[in-house]
């Protein structure tokens, strides 16, 4: 009895905690909206003014600077002149995520005088394992604002300008022009081409970092006379189906942290002018074997559409169209199946309640299946559907065309791909997917089913 009561207290407590966290996030989001409206109403176009206000030109270090930066001031290659260059510099960081957070942290704490932070998105709980400047209490707040709060606590002498909107072909040149160096900490292909083109046209060095799973890449584009641009190396974007985002592929925070910290290092070297900048070379980090490889890449491509002597691209283009992908890392809902090939999660729930015999195939990867699964589900990763090895495994169930087969995944995209593939082989079988997948299940059937 006592144990049961204690259990129900725990459940109640957990519920309340979750509710409070949700309300806090909603409150932060509203606060954010209010701040934006207020700024817009009070001084329309203030961002431009702040941005283009003449930067203070510092000729000497203050006593506070000397105390604060003493450990790097005594570096021979860096010294007082390096510190002053950093203090007078302006760096734009695009993306305040897994790469942007550590990069911004090292640049602000090293004494970079002016930092611009670009991110249109808000802080979510699933960001916190790698986006080290954000906190639980700032969920729902704009990422740029949240990072600004953290950075000013680290170094109040840093001037930080937030650009809390999506960088696009209309605003990119205007924003980037005000900065000396740009860090590509973005999470999508379209933004990478946009940044490359704008930086090449404006002759701004672009410190490009990227990470996924346990892999990282780092190089500096548009640097010096012979340094290549992104298009010299990758003239055409990859097909959308070959691009994996962090939400689907996963990523470890220590990997983004490694690359982001090195982006700050390269930016400091570019600004101060010491060492060998990582241009014309690409650093490949394999976190799994902890190996760094330095690949010598090409110089400028003589027929590059952008940075050669006869460019074909002389102004920014529509990058979402060029890449066939949105300028974010969110998944789009696929529409591959007609309504007769899909079942709503509530209807499936009813079938289960009536104990209708059926087969439920969960097509997620085993690691995801391990996180959470529906009681009747059998794990058959999508690859086993697409290579038809499922046929032998479920030969018994497939004998009967009427036997209901359902397919589920996280959001209801891969399940559609699976049903489409199975239907091509078994057109008259009863094979349907669960609309909105497990996310739909949590939303409409069981609020305690975990979401990831």
């Amino acid at each position: 009895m006592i144990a049961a009561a204690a259990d129900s207290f725990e459940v109640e407590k957990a519920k309340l905690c979750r509710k409070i966290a949700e309300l806090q996030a909603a409150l932060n989001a509203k606060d954010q909206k209010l701040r934006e409206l207020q700024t817009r109403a009070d001084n329309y176009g203030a961002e431009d003014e702040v941005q283009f206000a003449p930067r203070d030109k510092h000729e000497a270090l203050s006593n506070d600077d000397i105390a604060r930066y003493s450990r790097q001031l005594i570096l021979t290659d860096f010294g007082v002149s390096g510190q002053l260059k950093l203090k007078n510099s302006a760096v734009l960081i695009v993306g305040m995520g897994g790469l942007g957070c550590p990069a911004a942290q090292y640049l602000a704490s090293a004494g970079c005088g002016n930092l611009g932070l670009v991110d249109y998105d808000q802080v979510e709980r699933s960001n916190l394992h790698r986006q080290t400047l954000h906190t639980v209490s700032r969920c729902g707040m704009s990422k740029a604002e949240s990072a600004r709060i953290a950075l000013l606590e680290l170094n109040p002498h840093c001037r930080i300008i937030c650009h809390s909107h999506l960088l696009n072909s209309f605003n990119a040149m205007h924003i980037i022009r005000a900065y000396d160096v740009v860090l590509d900490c973005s999470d999508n292909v379209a933004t990478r081409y946009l940044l490359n083109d704008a930086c090449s046209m404006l002759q701004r060095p672009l410190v490009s970092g990227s990470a996924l799973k346990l892999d990282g890449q780092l190089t500096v584009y548009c640097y010096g006379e012979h340094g290549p641009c992104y298009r010299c190396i990758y003239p055409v974007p990859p097909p959308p189906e070959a691009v994996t985002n962090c939400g689907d592929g996963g990523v470890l925070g220590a990997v983004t942290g490694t690359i982001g910290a090195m982006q700050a290092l390269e930016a400091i070297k570019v600004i101060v002018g010491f060492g060998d900048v990582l241009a014309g070379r690409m650093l490949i980090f394999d976190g799994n074997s902890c190996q760094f490889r330095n690949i010598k890449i090409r110089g400028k491509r003589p027929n590059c559409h952008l940075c050669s002597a006869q460019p074909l691209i002389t102004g920014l283009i529509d990058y979402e169209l060029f890449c066939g992908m949105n300028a974010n890392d969110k998944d789009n809902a696929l529409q591959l199946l007609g309504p007769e090939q899909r079942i709503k999660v509530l209807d499936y729930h009813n079938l289960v309640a009536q104990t209708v015999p059926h087969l439920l195939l969960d097509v997620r990867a085993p690691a995801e299946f391990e996180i959470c699964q529906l009681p009747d589900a059998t794990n058959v990763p999508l690859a086993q559907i697409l290579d038809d090895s499922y046929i032998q495994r479920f030969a018994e169930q497939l004998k009967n065309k009427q036997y209901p087969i359902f397919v589920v995944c996280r959001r209801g995209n891969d399940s559609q791909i699976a049903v489409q593939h199975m239907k091509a082989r078994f057109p008259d079988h009863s094979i349907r997917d669960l609309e909105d997948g497990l996310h739909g299940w949590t939303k409409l059937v069981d609020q305690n089913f975990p979401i990831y």
Partner: protein
Amino acid sequence: MNMEGSSLLVNINVLFFAKSRELAKTSRAEFTVESVIKAGNLLNQLIDSFNLNTISNNLIIAHNENYIENLDTEIHLHKGDEIAVIPPISGG
């Protein structure tokens, strides 16, 4: 396999990164190939043998950590040489 003249076969190591590792289902493989070969021919053989079709236009190929700039050049491979296959990563 297309034998170019009388060139010998050698065993090289192919390293796969990021998406190519997923498609090839391995991070490293031994590969037997003509010791003197056009870079483009080597690339095509790798694409066919390791299921890299979807990213065939988006690869850096490096021979002993040096980018292969021109697919028309002839490269000379020695036993144990390293060919790295590097597609772009866009996450962050």
